[in-house]
């Protein structure tokens, strides 16, 4: 008979590892950049959850805010910015 407790203790981290890696790969394989920005949060959140599993609750909190919220927002904002037509002015500069 399998101990349910040990099964859960093992299965949850392994699932999180798979999520982190697959999230990273899938995010980088997207054609649509906005989807990529959203999918970045999957990997970030999985890494935050792994921190929690590895006995680091306060680091997990920081990573959850930074990796799952701030970074996708920043990437999404810059993707939206790069969808606007570019400004074609000649930039002055010294050689």
């Amino acid at each position: 008979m399998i101990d349910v407790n040990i099964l859960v203790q093992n299965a949850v981290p392994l699932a999180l590892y798979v999520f982190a890696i697959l999230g990273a790969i899938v995010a980088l394989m997207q054609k649509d950049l906005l989807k990529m920005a959203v999918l970045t949060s999957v990997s970030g959140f999985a890494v935050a959850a792994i921190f929690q599993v590895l006995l680091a609750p306060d680091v997990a909190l920081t990573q959850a805010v930074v990796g799952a919220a701030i970074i996708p927002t920043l990437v999404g904002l810059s993707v939206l910015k790069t969808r606007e037509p570019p400004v074609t002015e000649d930039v002055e500069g010294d050689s």
Partner: protein
Amino acid sequence: MAIEIVQCGALITAALLMIIGLVALVYLDNVLKKIIGAAFIGDGVNLLIIALGYRVNGIPYIFLQNMDVNSFLGQASYPLPFALVLTSIVIGASTLAVMLALAVVLYKRNGTLSATALLNDKKLGEENNE
């Protein structure tokens, strides 16, 4: 034995994240994807440091009032790596923000996000040949 799989798995995940980041930096052409790849390298290193501080059958390193000192010392995970990772996460996020801002500025000037078109040495070469 069962729980050491957790630590080994975390180390392997960290290594894979670093490799994914490097592959993205070398093979993908889009500048934004390169930047995200660079962020994944940072994530991988952070994960590795966290995995180093892990303790099998341990408890978090936060000392509460009603805990026994001796059993806390025997069980708590090592807090130094976690303190370092907090700094490292913030540094990574700020670096990422600056890189994204640069990518946006470059897009506004050149109208493309392709690294081969943006970050080549064609301009310099033309100047040299004048």
